[in-house]
């Protein structure tokens, strides 16, 4: 009963729970991108289907199945949580449905689990912390401590940080873990004070990021040991962190303050449409939309021509608010990473940490 006069787009995103905010931003960004297409692209309507994945990996294949099999969508935009994304990919491999991942960073998604029909417009966990080591060594910090939650994404971020940092001659003198999603950091901070590293690198996001940054400052460490992190440490939570975030240096593939024309117009349009400021998640959603448009252009709106669609997406050059990026062989963005520093309550771009960083796509036999 698949009608050929509609493009069926499914959102598999968290609409409830901790990541609900990200889910909303992604959907907003995505829809904004599609407005470029007008009302009836290629004479077809665009039908949207949604499923709230609750960020629960145990239900991931189930929800993926629901949107891919029952709703029979042409393409799925999802999701935020890495574990859920993996389940989704697993189902996508069976159904062959196109998938565009607008956030989840699990390396395997475009590594060992990679698939022709699975694309990512965000980042791999390997990416954001990889350039961090270089930035730290450039700033003269050779001995560092790494702090993260004990879970998949944290461990992947740590591994890539170590790789990048050691390649530049740095040394990770201690890895400190906090059980997920525990947010009591006092013990860790005391340990850091005792270890006296040159700098601290960390991987946190959301509520944990806010608390870590505030506690770090309250413990007085901010003035003696500089804090670095992957960009998610300050992204979207700067307001909550307030003055305590001042001076934190991070690396990320996007920054609100990027001064390219694309970004300025995107932010303007986003503000107009949703009456709020865009963030990296909105950009990732937006780029997912741009990527889909490439596929639609190539197939004149008929996504059932899968091979063409995939080919178009593989060869896409996305003119993104974050700067132009291309797809790697394993379907992950080859993109710039910027060095950001919090100054006066905003993430200021102070340089490009790495031009065109490509995830190694380990284990992907494409």
């Amino acid at each position: 009963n698949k009608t050929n006069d509609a493009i069926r787009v499914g959102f598999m995103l968290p609409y409830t729970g901790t990541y609900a905010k990200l889910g909303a931003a992604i959907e907003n960004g995505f829809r904004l991108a599609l407005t470029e297409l007008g009302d009836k692209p290629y004479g077809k309507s665009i039908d949207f289907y949604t499923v709230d994945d609750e960020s629960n990996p145990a239900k991931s294949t189930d929800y993926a199945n629901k949107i891919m099999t029952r709703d029979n969508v042409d393409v799925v935009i999802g999701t935020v949580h890495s574990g859920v994304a993996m389940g989704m990919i697993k189902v996508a491999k069976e159904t062959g449905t196109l998938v565009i991942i607008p956030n989840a960073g699990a390396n395997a998604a475009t590594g060992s689990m990679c698939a022709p029909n699975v694309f990512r417009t965000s980042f791999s966990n390997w990416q954001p912390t990889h350039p961090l080591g270089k930035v730290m060594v450039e700033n003269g910090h050779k001995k560092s401590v790494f702090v993260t939650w004990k879970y998949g994404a944290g461990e992947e971020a740590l591994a890539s940080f170590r790789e990048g940092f050691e390649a530049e001659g740095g040394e990770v003198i201690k890895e400190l873990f906090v059980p997920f999603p525990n947010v009591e950091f006092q013990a860790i901070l005391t340990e850091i004070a005792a270890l006296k590293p040159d700098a601290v690198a960390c991987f946190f996001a959301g509520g944990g990021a806010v608390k870590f940054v505030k506690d770090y400052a309250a413990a007085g460490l901010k003035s003696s040991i500089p804090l670095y992190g992957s960009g998610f440490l300050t992204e979207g939570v700067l307001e909550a962190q307030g003055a305590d975030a001042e001076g934190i240096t991070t690396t990320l593939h996007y920054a609100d303050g990027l001064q390219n024309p694309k970004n300025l117009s995107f932010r303007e349009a986003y503000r107009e449409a949703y009456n709020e400021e865009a963030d990296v998640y909105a950009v990732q959603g937006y780029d997912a939309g741009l990527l889909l448009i490439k596929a639609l252009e190539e197939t004149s709106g008929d996504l059932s021509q899968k091979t063409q669609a995939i080919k178009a997406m593989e060869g896409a050059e996305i003119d993104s608010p974050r700067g132009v990026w291309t797809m790697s062989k394993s379907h992950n963005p080859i993109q710039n990473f910027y060095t950001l520093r919090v100054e006066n309550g905003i993430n200021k771009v102070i340089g490009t940490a790495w031009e065109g960083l490509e995830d190694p796509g380990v284990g992907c036999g494409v």
Partner: protein
Amino acid sequence: MDAATFFIQTMNGIQYGLLLFLVASGLTLIFGIMGVINIAHGSFYMIGAYLAWSLMGWVGNFWIGLVAGVMVALVLGLLLEWLFIRFLYDRDHLQQVLVTYGLILIFSELRSMIWGDDVHSVPIPELLNGSIQITENLAYPIYRLWLSGVCIVIAVLMFLGIQHTRLGMMIRAGESDREMTKALGINIGLIYRFIFALGITLAAFSGMISAPISSVFPGMGSQVLIVSFVVVVIGGLGSIKGAMIAALSVGLIDTFGKVIHLDIFGINIFPEMSGMSIFALMALILTLRPQGLFGREH
């Protein structure tokens, strides 16, 4: 770990323990003493934090916001008791679980509708904003110390209130035999309404005063729920003293679990498996003392 660090870590553990006690205090009342299983405890903690954020932001003063928040929580508690909980005292405990589970869903959604899903933080009040330098590069926030003080005060008040006042006796009597309590002329319904509301208020209050150091975010309720139950149960139902000791032990275990390195038979226990630590502690204590540390044997 040198002696100074060890000492500081111990202090951290105690301070965290006190915080846990505070978070669990409302549950000690409602569950430990009234015997009502309220699994929505975490939701009230979360609501407290969001209330603090919005009220304090609105009036622009921590203390006024705190008082206002306490009022709101009290009213909310009274209302909930009147609407739902009062029908449940004489019923199977599991019905209480079911109703409060429903409340979790309702509150998390209402929170999202009213306040959104953003992460926020609440500024530390001027009066308590500052810190004490303890080593050359480590400072201790005064607010945390104040928080510990509040926990101790609440613990003492609760202890005296429950063990040594008529009201405390009435609550405990009501738990043992409601009909008989009524037959002695005690309006146990009214008392329970207030105690329930008080428990809710305590939960919300702890959310409010933890907000400046814990930040305010959607999943914060479920995080404290389990640990609160752990504290109340390890301590033994109805025992304030037990809850305090349990909270301190959990605080210490959690603190040291994150920084000590411990291998057993080549398997890394700490910090690799420190997430398990408080549950292992609970399992161990309940195996040795099936009624909790200070629980009465039945």
